[in-house]
């Protein structure tokens, strides 16, 4: 066990030097891409925001079901099949048919080639589950139909979220899907997440609707309140134009009124629609509605045919900028709720780094002094192994650009404390062996061999805990499991290669001494 070949010695040294080099590259600037790797600091250390958003899909489901009803009506009308009493209740479409058509309708809905109820061979399921009761049919989304709907709404939402975050221009944002209705947004270095939060909290559904002449709410109109909450208005449900037709929006100054407004331009279809509506509606009030609230309702003085216009509404420059940004990035398919937020200010992050490094330094020093006190020369060997262990650990974390969190730093300190365990096990075993064995080389050899299974057992148990933590934990805690797990591997390396190499050199040189350990 004490014999090392030249090749082995060289590879141990090379390996250690390379990783120590990566450890140091955190503190030195290199031009070369490969060598200038850095440990990523977690949001708790560099400051920033972690936002978990959840899509509220209920409005999407209702919308899709309403569209489905229209589709079904049209489809069966073309086939000249009578369906009646359509209704929508608890996310279920209900309708009735007449006796002689019953089988026919049932077959169409359950057909694998069905045009109105798509069949997904991969899931072995239709989009809708169909239940018949007498002549009454009820359709609701099948499990997979719902999954597909959620996925597509998530895909759309994540795109919009990305656009909005990019527009604000933060430092390397991280936007990820979580499950089928959640989006994780990480915004490193962001001091104040309030602006992004309010931007992400808006669906940004923009519509232009005429204000009704009638003062009573009736079929085809709805009552909406103004943004500032001052009053309500009865608005026609007919949507003249929606945000989908917008190609650009920006905040500008209206030179006549000296007011900040949002100017927008429309695509060709939008311009045509807008021109037509404003031509017929001269004199009427046009409500500009955002997420169910009227921003303003200017009167149409003349037809607007150029395909561009302005939205006014008591904007500050900031609010006009934000509205323009929302309109440019498009509407979310459904509202997003922020269900988890964790924000750390940059100065707290720096404080945590300082405290972490201080405690690492002190912990390290205490352990080193204790080991020298206990084992003298061998304590020094264990300490050298410990130092290279620390370099290896930081080097590996750097090479893989792992994310270091505050609990991660705690994991490193803990590794320092526990890493000496393996060397202690070996040294204590050697001490026992020297009692019966006078030849130190044989005693040392035996010490290494006999302690090996124990060391493996002991480290595997901690590794198991680290693994489980890695797969179950989130955020900062995950960082802890990474340093703990990698720390065990580097500990084993430093004990079995570095410390053993140094021990063997020392023992071979001093084999004639009375008491080695």
């Amino acid at each position, binding site marked *: 066990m004490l014999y090392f070949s030249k090749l082995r010695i060289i590879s141990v040294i090379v390996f250690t030097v390379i990783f120590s080099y990566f450890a140091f590259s955190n503190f030195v600037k290199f031009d070369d891409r490969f060598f200038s790797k850095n440990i990523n600091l977690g949001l708790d250390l560099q400051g920033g925001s972690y936002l978990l958003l959840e899509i509220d899909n209920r409005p999407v489901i209702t919308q899709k079901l309403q569209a489905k009803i229209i589709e079904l009506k049209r489809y069966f009308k073309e086939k000249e099949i009578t369906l009646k009493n359509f209704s929508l209740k608890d996310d279920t479409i209900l309708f009735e048919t007449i006796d002689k058509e019953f089988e026919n309708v049932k077959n169409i809905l359950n057909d694998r080639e069905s045009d109105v109820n798509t069949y997904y061979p991969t899931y072995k399921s239709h989009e809708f589950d169909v239940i018949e009761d007498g002549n009454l049919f009820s359709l609701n989304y099948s499990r997979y139909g719902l999954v597909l709907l959620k996925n597509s709404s998530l895909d759309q939402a994540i795109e919009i979220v990305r656009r909005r975050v990019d527009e604000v221009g933060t430092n390397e944002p991280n936007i990820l899907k979580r499950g089928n209705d959640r989006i994780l947004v990480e915004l490193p270095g962001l001091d104040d997440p309030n602006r992004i939060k309010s931007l992400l*909290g808006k669906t940004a559904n923009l519509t232009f609707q005429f204000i009704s002449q009638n003062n009573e709410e009736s079929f085809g109109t709805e009552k909406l309140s103004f943004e500032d909450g001052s009053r309500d208005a009865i608005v026609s449900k007919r949507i003249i134009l929606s945000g989908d037709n917008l190609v650009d929006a920006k905040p500008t100054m209206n030179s006549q009124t000296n007011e900040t407004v949002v100017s927008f331009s429309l695509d060709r279809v939008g311009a045509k629609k807008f021109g037509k509506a404003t031509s017929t509606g001269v004199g009427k009030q046009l409500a500009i509605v955002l997420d169910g609230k009227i921003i303003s309702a200017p009167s149409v003085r003349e037809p607007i045919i150029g395909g561009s216009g302005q939205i006014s509404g008591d904007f500050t420059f900031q609010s006009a900028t934000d509205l323009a940004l929302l309109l440019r990035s498009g509407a979310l398919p459904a509202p997003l709720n922020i269900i988890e937020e964790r*924000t750390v200010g940059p100065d707290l992050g720096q404080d945590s780094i300082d405290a972490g490094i201080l405690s690492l330094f002190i912990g390290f020093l205490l352990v080193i002094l204790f*080991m020298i006190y206990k084992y003298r020369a061998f304590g020094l060997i264990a300490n050298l192994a410990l130092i290279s262990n620390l370099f290896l650990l930081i080097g590996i974390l750097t090479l893989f650009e792992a994310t270091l969190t505050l609990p991660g730093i705690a994991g490193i300190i803990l590794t320092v*404390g526990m890493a000496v365990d393996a060397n202690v096990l070996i040294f204590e075993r050697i001490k*026992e062996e020297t009692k019966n064995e006078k030849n130190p080389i044989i005693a040392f050899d035996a010490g290494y061999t006999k302690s090996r299974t124990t060391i493996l057992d002991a480290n595997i*148990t901690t590794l198991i805990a680290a693994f489980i933590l890695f797969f179950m934990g989130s955020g900062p805690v995950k960082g802890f499991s990474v340093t703990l797990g990698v720390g065990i591997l580097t500990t084993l390396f430093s004990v079995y290669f570095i410390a053993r190499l140094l021990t063997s050199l020392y023992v071979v040189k001093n084999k004639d001494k009375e008491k080695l350990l």
Partner: protein
Amino acid sequence: MRNISFNKFYRKFNILSLLLIVISLVFLIFKGLNYGVDFKGGTLIELRTSDKTNNISLIRDSFNQMNLGDVSVKKFGNETDFIVKFEMQNSNDPEFIKNIQNKLSSSIGDVDFRRVENVGPKVSSELLKSGIIAISLSLAAMLLYIWIRFEWQFSLGAILAIFHDVIITLGIFSIFSLEINLSIVAAVLTIVGYSMNDTVVIFDRVRENLRKYSDIKIFDLTNISINETLSRTIITSVTTLLALLSIYLFGGEILKGFSLAMILGVIFGTYSSIYIANPILVALNVSQRTIVKEEKD
């Protein structure tokens, strides 16, 4: 090698442990744990005031005026730093935190929100669930590992020792109303690993000695094994505790709970390896035949 008669006190310490476990369980069942926002949901704000005259009651009063429900305010390290917690959490209103900050600034002067954690009820129950799953899973994995490596009598001893450590550590958190958050789950998992580690070292020696001496009864054999591994047990506990103490004292407020849980865990883990795991081998009357039979299979 020292020769301390650990085995003389097996019974006494077992009674003590049993007592501690019962007390812990009583507290865990009737008082419960003080869950932080991670597991209970709600809002946590770490704030720093610019005005040194601000104190806890002043801050509490300002928060109480905002109708946020039950508000708890605690000092956090520095003179000017406070932790404020309340159960209200509003995911529908993105301006929620901003409004609080504005109101607070107007009543007690400039405040800096150094940290904000806002966890919805759905997320917190998920985090709690995954925390419990993580701990159960790691216990199961340890059980499986030790079952493969040792005979069942040893597995039982090791697992009971781990339960002992986890229950008492959580019991202490319950008694002193210390906060349970995500990092405490990480600490508990590490305690599980550490306690196992410690027990395995002694058990390895017990097994080795069982092979070596056929004429020594398990009662004395465990004592020999404990003594043979004692210096290692002490040295490793000391270095680990030194590192943890350094985190506790210098690592900042955020790591205090985590390092405290770990310190308790290491102390109880070391104790239980000697006084829980070994007496169980004695109680199960483990002998040379236990391991020889197993090895023949």
